[in-house]
Structure formats: C-alpha cells, structure tokens
C-alpha cells in the first residue's frame, strides 16, 4: 500500500521536500567570503588603476621609440625595451630546449625513481630561492669565472637557471596529463619512443608547455635584482655593433630601469610610465595564455 494513502494532513507536511530555509551560519559565512572577495578585487583594481593613471600620461610615441638625450633633456626607453627583448629571446633560446628536454627525460626515460625524486626536489628548491642569490651566483660564475663580464649574455644565462625549474615542472605536469592509452596505442602500432614523443606527446602537451614559456617570459620581464648585478644598471644608449657585440655589452631591462629612475634618480613620472608599460605587458601575456588554452582545447575537440 502507498505510504501517503493513509496519511493525514500534518504527516504530509513532514514528508514533504519543500520548505527550504537559509541557515544563519551560512548567511554569516557567505557575507564574510563575499567581503574578502570584494576586498581582493578592490585592492587589485585600485593598484592597477593607480599605476595606469599615473603612468599612461608619461607614455608617448617618442618615449617608446627613442633613447634618452641628456643634451636636449628628453627621456626615452627604447634601449631598455631592446635590452628586455634580447634577454627574453636569449633566455628562451637557452631555457626552452633544456627545460622541455629535461621534462621529457624525467617523464619518459628516467628509470630510477630516486634520480627523479632528486631532480624534482632540486627544481622545487631552485624555484623558491630569492632571485638576488641567482644574481650573486651569476656574477661570480658567468661574469667573472666564465669572463662574460656584466652583459646581456650573463643576464640571460642567469635567468635561464632561474626559469628552468618553472619550465621543467610545468612541462612535466603537461606531459604527465597525456593519457597512458595514447602512448600504448602508439607503441602497439610499433612506434619508437622518440616517434611517439614527437607525434603524440609533445603536440598534446603543447598548451602546457606554451603556458610554461609565457610564465617564464613574465618572470624575465619582472626580474630586477639579479639583472642589476649581472646585466648592468644602465640603458642610456642604443645597443651598437653586431648581434654578438650587442649581447656582450651591458644594459638594463625595463624593470631595472624602473628601479633606477624611481629610486636612484627620483624621477617618479618615468618610473610610473615604465611600471604602466610592464603592467600592460604582463596583462597581455596572461591574455595570451588564456587564448592559447582556449584555441588548443577547441582543437582537441
């Protein structure tokens, strides 16, 4: 017999699933969480807005496309932009093959669990070390011992060591996420390991690897302390000579210039202008990561 059939009025209400009500503790918790969310968002927006409003005023076409000229008293940051581009380019040229190669090795070839754990521990430790320590090491090793002097090249080598952990770890996660069944499928058809890595593994891990690269570019753009030591603290002049002569000379990147203008020379407007430019670059990089993720996801479907 149906349970509700003999039930009188009050009983039906007890059995009903309606009558939703909010618990007081939920309301309190939701309010607190909401407040925090607003606070975080407001702080970020205020911070970014402040820099952009104060900084964008100082950015002009001439500011971006010329070098400073002390005689007529104009300020331009083209040398710093070029130095930044050089350092990004060189660092990626060194760090990406080594980092991705290392990740492939750890994930696909390394047999000894112990070795893998040592490498993972090392990369994790390296990524937590303050950058100034990389700067000191870079100065001693690249500038002095290898006699590369204070130069863009020394800067790129130092940053390579700094971003390698990020590239290795992020690429490794990307490689790990490629399903085992793909590897089996390829092996079952007779693919060699290297063929499988080239045709299945790397294409499927590419979005993660590109994310690692863009994150590294962000780190390079934002680095100041280490570069001040190994790459130099001035960007007065445009780089001269051949490509190799240029990278062997010293020069500061945008972040270092920001420090120099705002702190040593007290020219805060220029500092804010560079800060705004850096902020725009970083926001742009993040958008690129998002776009790549979306496009690659669409490709997989």
């Amino acid at each position, binding site marked *: 017999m149906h349970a509700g059939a003999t039930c009188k009025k009050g009983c039906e209400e007890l059995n009903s699933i309606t009558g939703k009500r909010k618990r007081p503790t939920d309301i309190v918790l939701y309010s607190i969480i909401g407040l925090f969310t607003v606070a975080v968002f407001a702080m970020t927006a205020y911070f970014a807005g402040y820099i952009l409003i104060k900084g964008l005023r100082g950015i002009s076409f001439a500011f971006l496309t010329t070098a400073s000229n002390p005689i007529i008293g104009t300020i331009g940051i083209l040398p710093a932009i070029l130095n930044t581009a050089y350092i990004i380019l060189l660092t990626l040229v060194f760090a990406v093959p080594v980092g991705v190669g290392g990740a492939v090795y750890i994930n696909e070839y390394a047999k000894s669990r112990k070795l893998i754990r040592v490498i993972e521990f090392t990369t994790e430790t390296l990524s937590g070390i303050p950058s100034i320590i990389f700067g000191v090491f870079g100065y001693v090793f690249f500038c002095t011992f290898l006699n590369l002097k204070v130069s863009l090249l020394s800067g790129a080598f130092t940053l390579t060591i700094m971003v390698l952990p990020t590239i290795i770890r992020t690429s490794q996660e990307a490689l790990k996420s490629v399903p085992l069944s793909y590897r089996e499928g*390829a092996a079952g*058809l007779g*693919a060699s390991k290297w063929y499988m890595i080239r045709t299945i593994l790397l294409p499927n891990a590419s979005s993660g690897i590109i994310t690692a690269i863009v994150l590294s570019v962000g780190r390079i753009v934002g680095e100041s302390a280490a570069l001040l030591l190994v790459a130099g603290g001035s960007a007065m002049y445009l780089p001269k000579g051949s490509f190799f002569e240029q990278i062997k000379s010293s020069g500061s990147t945008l972040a270092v210039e920001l420090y120099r203008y705002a702190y040593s020379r007290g020219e805060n407007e220029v500092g804010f202008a560079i800060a705004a430019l850096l902020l725009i670059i970083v926001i742009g990089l993040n958008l690129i990561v998002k776009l790549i993720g979306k496009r690659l996801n669409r490709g997989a*479907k």
Partner: protein
Amino acid sequence: MTKIITENLHLHYGENHALRGIDLNIHANKITALIGPSGCGKSTFLKTLNRMNDSVPNIKITGKVLLDGEDIYDSTVDVTKLRKKAGMVFQSPNPFPMSIYDNVAYGLRIHGIKKRVLIDEIVERSLQGAAIWDEVKDRLRTPALALSGGQQQRLCIARTLAVSPEAILMDEPTSALDPISTMKIEELMSELAKKYTVVIVTHNMQQAARISDYTAFFLLGEMIEYDKTNNIFAAPKDQRTENYITGRFG
C-alpha cells in the same frame, strides 16, 4: 597451422610470479579466446605476445615466444617490426586526438610510407576492413574523439589493420562498449579471422563461446586447460574449468 607458440613461459613482476610456465600453440587464422577470473594472467600473457610488457619496471620473462618460428624475445628482434606483425587492440578505445584519417595513417607513417595515394588507399581499405567505412567516409578529416565508443573501437581496429599485421591481439576489446557495438565488433572478429590470427582476452564467457574457435582457461598464472571452444564449454576435462564456466567462481 600454428602461428604463435609459447614454451615454458614464465613472467615475474618483482616478487609476483604472474605467469607460471605457459605452453600454448595458437593456430593461424583462428580466433583463440583467453578466459579466466581477474588477475589470472590472461592479459599479461597477451601482452607478452608482442612485448607490450617490455617497459614495465622489475619485469622478468623467461621461456620462449615463437612467432612464425622466430623467438620474439631474441636480442636481434626489431620491436617495431614485431608490432607491425602482431598488432594490439586495447580494452578501452584509444584513438589519438587527431582526425579519423590521421589515426589510420599513423601506423603507416611510423613504417615510413609517405606516398599520399598509397596512404589514401590503405586508409580506405582498413576502414572497410573494420566495418566503419560507411559511417565515416564523409568525415575523414573530423576529430576521431567525436565518434561514439563503438565507432572509436572499430577505428582502433582499422588503425591496427592499416599496418597489415598477421596477428591481432585484443585485450577485452568490448568490455567498455554497449551491447550493439559489442555485437558489431564480434561480427567483425569472425570476418577478421578469415585473414588474420586473432587472440582475444575476454571476461565474458558467452563471448568466448560465441566467437572463438579455441579457448584457453587461465587461473592464478597457470594455463589450466586449452582445447577447441566446443570441447571446453561442453566437456571440460578439468574440474576447475568446469567450476569457472558454470559460474561457481570468477
């Protein structure tokens, strides 16, 4: 005619003695089913037949596996050639995240076939061989992952057929599929047995009874009984085989 012979095949995973002296003659152009409860070693055995176990850590294999009289564990064996000759279809369909066409062409490219016309021809023939051509011929360039599970599995079979194997090893190929897809794959297997030697691992005894010519019953790493499928199911010689096929354990 015998296609694959195993002689006193032992396999250890570290401490675990997973295969204990398997002697089996697998007949050419027949379907051989490997049955037994979970953990009995039937899948492990299948994988030793084209060395898919090679990369497992701490694995030790002794004894012989002869494919057309050649020992596949000999140091002079080219694993790529071995797997071309004995292809594998896996438990869950695992097409690559690329187009239907590229999935089938993948194996051809491994083996150095580059001519477009030839690849086109083999892709079509393989898809027909796996009874999926009519369903996909108008969308060869679309992603394979958009196909249904059953279609994906037939695509994986087509991918295996493309490299013109002589033996096809199937590891529970229908266990992730619905009954209609399962039926299609079973029909396909009977068709395949005309040209290929088929070895199939299955959990499903009815499936073994329906489609196979020979059946081997595995238990705890040993092969208990091996005979024509009709004999195994109608008059098993070993009490343990009888207990298993009548559902007393498993």
